[in-house]
């Protein structure tokens, strides 16, 4: 049993390390872009620090999101939780709200399309149409 726990720990640790490596790589790519843009070089230590910071902040975000969702008596993290998380930074909040509105619109459009499809399919025959309407309404 202890061995299992140890192996589990090792697996989690290795998984965590892989995640960290992925974050580090992504941060490195982003930093390169910024360096090209601003014509300023990034040292390796800086990139490492940023990636470590990002990783830890992700942990915090996750915990906060879970807290927010639980605070709203939900078990699923919502866009509302994300917005609450980003409220500190005004620009970030604005960006996220815009994005969320976009996504909401896309969802509405998809729903409308689905409704249309079901309605068209229902017009072929009245009975199926009524059933379809009922279903779509539901």
């Amino acid at each position, binding site marked *: 049993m202890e061995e299992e726990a140890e192996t589990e720990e090792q697996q989690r640790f290795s998984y965590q390390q892989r995640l960290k490596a992925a974050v580090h790589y992504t941060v490195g790519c982003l930093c390169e872009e910024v360096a090209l843009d601003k014509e300023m070089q990034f040292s390796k230590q800086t990139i490492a620090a940023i990636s470590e910071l990002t990783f830890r902040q992700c942990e915090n975000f996750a915990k*906060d999101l879970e*807290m*927010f969702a639980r*605070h*709203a*008596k939900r078990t699923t993290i919502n866009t*509302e*939780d994300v917005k*609450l998380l980003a*409220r500190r930074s005004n620009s970030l909040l604005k960006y996220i709200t815009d994005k969320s509105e976009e996504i909401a619109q896309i969802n509405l459009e998809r729903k409308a399309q689905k409704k249309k499809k079901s309605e068209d399919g229902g017009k072929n025959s009245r009975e199926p149409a009524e059933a379809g309407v009922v279903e779509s309404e539901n």
Partner: protein
Amino acid sequence: MADHNPDGDPTPRTLLRRVLDTADPRTPRRPRSARAGAQRALLETASSRRLSGQTKTIAKGRSRGARSIGRSAHVQARGHLEEQTPRTLLKNILLTAPESSILMPESVVKPVPAPQVVQPSRRESSRGSLELQLPELEPSTTLAPGLLAPGRRKQRLRLSMFQQGVDQGLPLSQEPQGNADASSLTSSLNLTFATPLQPQSVQRPGLARRPPARRAVDVGAFLRDLRDTSLAPPNIVLEDTQPFSQPTVGSPNVYHSLPCTPHTGAEDAEQAAGRRTQSSGPGLQNNSPGKPAQFLAGEAEEVDAFALGFLSTSSGVSGEDEVEPLHNGVEEAEKKMKEEGVSVSEMEATGAQGPSRAEEPEGHTQVTEAEGSQGTAEAEGPGASSGDEDASSRAASPELASSTPESLQARRHHQFPEPAPPPGAAVFFAKMPMERKALEMVEKCLDKYFQHLCDDLEVFAAHAGRKTVKPEDLELLMRRQGLVTDQVSLHVLVERHLPLEYRQLLIPCAYSGNSVFPAQ
């Protein structure tokens, strides 16, 4: 001394009589022979020992004093002898012999005069004089005139016995009522006690005690006064912010403000004021009036801030006032926290009650501030002891917040201008003088910080689909601050930093009859 032992139980009266007979009528300060003093000490010791048979503590004191007196025949012994004067013996008698001391006919007034008699006797200023003044008992006599009639018969019976004692030379009368009623009988007795207590309390039946009435303290005026006094020297600041124990500051006041309606009474007001200043001292935990700046910056939950709010709440001050002091308290707490470097996350949690939590722009809810005080307690961590109290008070404030969410919520929609905390508060926390500009900057930062906290609280409440800030919001805030963790729960903070009164309000506890308070 052995010769004086009566056949039956020596009553205190007889003992006292003997003592008085044998005692030197002159004040003990006059020089006497050591032997005389020692003898007197022995005499008093013996009698005191008999008297102390009824009271262990007194016996201990007397025996010690007697022994010390017996050992040294110096002037010091005389100093000890002074403790054994007939006056002190009479005091002892009054303490231990209720039947003779209580003159009131029925139980209505019986217990009351006894404590009053005891207390005034202690306050006798003149030494060696056997005259105790008890004017207050006279009004008490008017209380139950109907009862006096039957009682008088008993009194007269007692008086007759007493009169015997009087005739035998007992100069002291232990029946104050006798003065009022049977002045003719006890003409030689002048027993009146100073009135240390309020005459009102005399009218209470039995041992009923009126709940301490607290007059609403005008926190705004208080804060203004504090502000007006230019940078006060640290001494004054320390006086104002005497940590009494977090809940104290605010807690006793807060506690009373919560459930009780404000009473107006001279004494109560004084007591309240006294407590407030006391609480402010501890500043810590309890919602010190907020000014004491002892509150750790811990979130608005700083119960201390709440204490201020509470004081105002008790008086029924509009939420604004409450909010203001709370805010100040919170600010103070925050300042403290900044200086102490303690995380204020707890304060957030506590914000629920106290104004410290008042993250909401409306203002801090004092109620839950008790929790806030706890939060402050957390914020305290290191640093001034008062800081610790504040921190605890802050943590407590979140708990407290729950207690007054409703009243405060009504006021939430108002943005209350916060009264500026006294500039000395930051100096107190920094433990070194600060420039005025620095103080202003700190104050600005605290303002923003508390405003932020309040906004967070409001957002949290809205996030949960509510319009009222609840303790859950405070707890969430404290979590984000890091004061409440998986290892440290909110209740732990409440227990750590809030005084007992607040803790009772915040932590659900099962009482008799399967009732849980506060109800979940």
